[in-house]
């Protein structure tokens, strides 16, 4: 990082989430814990995009959810700088203290088919956060919803329609509008483009980049697709088994990976260039790595 780096927007230290392992049956005695997130630390500078990558079960989504308290972390500190300059520990706020803070940190979900309420119109979906936080009503609410829809590339007449009338890419735009209408400083994208076709994915990524410039957003971008992260993020954290194994500038991760797991992960990606051969042998290599690290 540059020496004149501004103080971080989000500073995560020792974030941990353990799930109990219980015996089956009535008594449900605890026999162990699963360390879904195990001592994760990183900083997010204002205006940057940090990619959080790894395979299913590595803890990347649990990390994202613990940050925004969608699930309760077991331990750790999550210092978040508010627009008024105050810094709060998201991990320790009570529910009542958390509510006003939530408008500054929003989430965009993977599945545009299950994250939007099918019985609500687009106007209600996008406007709901403003209503919940009592920030707008009536004509003001309508104007702000319309302006936000236009901003994400939807038309005003879309306001009265229901989610089923939209394509996957359009639904993702609705999800983005709902997150952005609160004018947050931090957006956590959890596999936000994973369900989309490549051409639509490219459009949504371009939109997210544009919005980042215009609104000064900071992204935590959770994804399993390494090519998307390479294209979108300034820095990348690679997770495995609940831990960050490597965190570096995107260029360094992709051109000079330091951790053996990062190297194996990158070699397994099928390149669209027929002259760049992928590694079919990752199974053995991962087994060897596990034997070494225990």
């Amino acid at each position, binding site marked *: 990082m540059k020496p004149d780096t501004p103080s971080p927007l989000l500073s995560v230290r020792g974030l941990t989430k353990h799930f109990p392992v219980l015996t089956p049956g009535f008594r449900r005695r605890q026999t162990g814990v699963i360390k879904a997130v195990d001592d994760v630390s990183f900083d997010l500078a204002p205006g940057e995009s940090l990619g959080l990558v790894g*395979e*299913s079960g590595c803890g990347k989504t649990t990390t994202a959810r613990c940050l925004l308290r969608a699930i309760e972390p077991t331990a750790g500190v999550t210092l978040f700088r508010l627009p008024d300059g105050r810094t709060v520990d998201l991990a320790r706020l009570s529910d009542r203290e958390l509510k006003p803070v939530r408008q500054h940190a929003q989430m965009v979900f993977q599945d545009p088919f299950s994250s939007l309420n099918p019985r609500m119109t687009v106007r209600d979906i996008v406007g709901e956060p403003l209503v919940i936080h009592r920030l707008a009503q009536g004509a003001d609410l309508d104007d702000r919803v319309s302006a936000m829809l236009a901003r994400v590339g939807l038309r005003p007449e879309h306001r009265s329609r229901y989610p089923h009338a939209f394509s996957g890419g359009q639904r993702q735009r609705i999800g983005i509008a709902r997150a952005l209408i609160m004018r947050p400083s931090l957006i956590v994208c959890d596999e936000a483009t994973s369900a989309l*076709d*490549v*051409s639509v*994915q*490219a459009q949504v*990524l*371009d939109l997210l*980049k544009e919005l980042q410039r215009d609104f000064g957003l900071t992204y935590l971008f959770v994804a*399993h*697709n*390494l*090519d*998307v992260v*390479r*294209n*979108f993020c300034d820095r990348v954290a690679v997770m495995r088994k609940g831990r960050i194994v490597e965190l570096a500038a995107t260029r360094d991760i992709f051109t000079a990976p330091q951790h053996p797991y990062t190297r*194996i*992960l990158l070699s*397994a*990606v*099928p*390149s*669209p*260039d*027929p002259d*760049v*051969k*992928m*590694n*079919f*042998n*990752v*199974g053995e290599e*991962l087994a060897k790595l596990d034997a070494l690290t225990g």
Partner: protein
Amino acid sequence: MNFPPEAPLLDVRNLRVSFFTPDGVVGAVQNVSFSIARGRTLALVGESGSGKSVTAYSLLRLVQPPGRIVDGRIVLRSQRAGEIDISHLDEKSGLLFRVRGGLVSMIFQEPMTALSPVHTIGSQIDEAILVHQDVSPAAARRLTLEMLHKVGIANAAQRYAQYPHELSGGMRQRAVIAMALVCRPELLIADEPTTALDVTIQAQILGLIKTLQREIGCSVLLITHDFGVVAQMADDVAVMRQGEIVERGSVRAVLKNPQHAYTRTLLDALPSRRARVM
């Protein structure tokens, strides 16, 4: 059966598949032609709704009403059963039964599509053998265990007795591959076989398909939306859009030097090829 060496295993000519819905007729596959040579891999690539899966389903006559093959020929030149026009077989014919799972088999994106949740892995693969081969149940069991071992499932004897829900996604896909290949088909249709899997698991499954293809000598029709998978797995590629093949050729020619504007658009949209926007 002996065919001239240049005769492809599969010839699809002017295939048209339409869906007759209450709102009108949808031409899902329109005048599609392609062929697959013996031992080769053809990738059918396109975005959702392009008709690539419907094309694949047609080859096994699996298109369900209101969908129907309205025109075209699907000629399979089987070493074991001779020349068969799959598109004109009677729904109840013994030959169609033999084609499905015997001469041509299919693996799906979601392995649970092909697995019964209430039968053990072993009994399902046994059944595939007993349906298509004249062997005793004990011999089928031996074949199944050998095949489970071949697809890289450790403790085959223990896995044999387990149910699909007891296996991870990657292991399930291995079991489905075992079931698909145990009758040594001449054509394997793989419909997005690794789309639901992690990249390191995907690499292992793709490697497995390649190895077994070489061993059995079958051809592969690979349905995918991923140009990376195309580049690493296929010899030839056909790009589909709105029910038509807009471009086809060798993988190298199409990916390195695409001729059709749509192919170029798709390749330019790949995150790995897009200039980094800052």
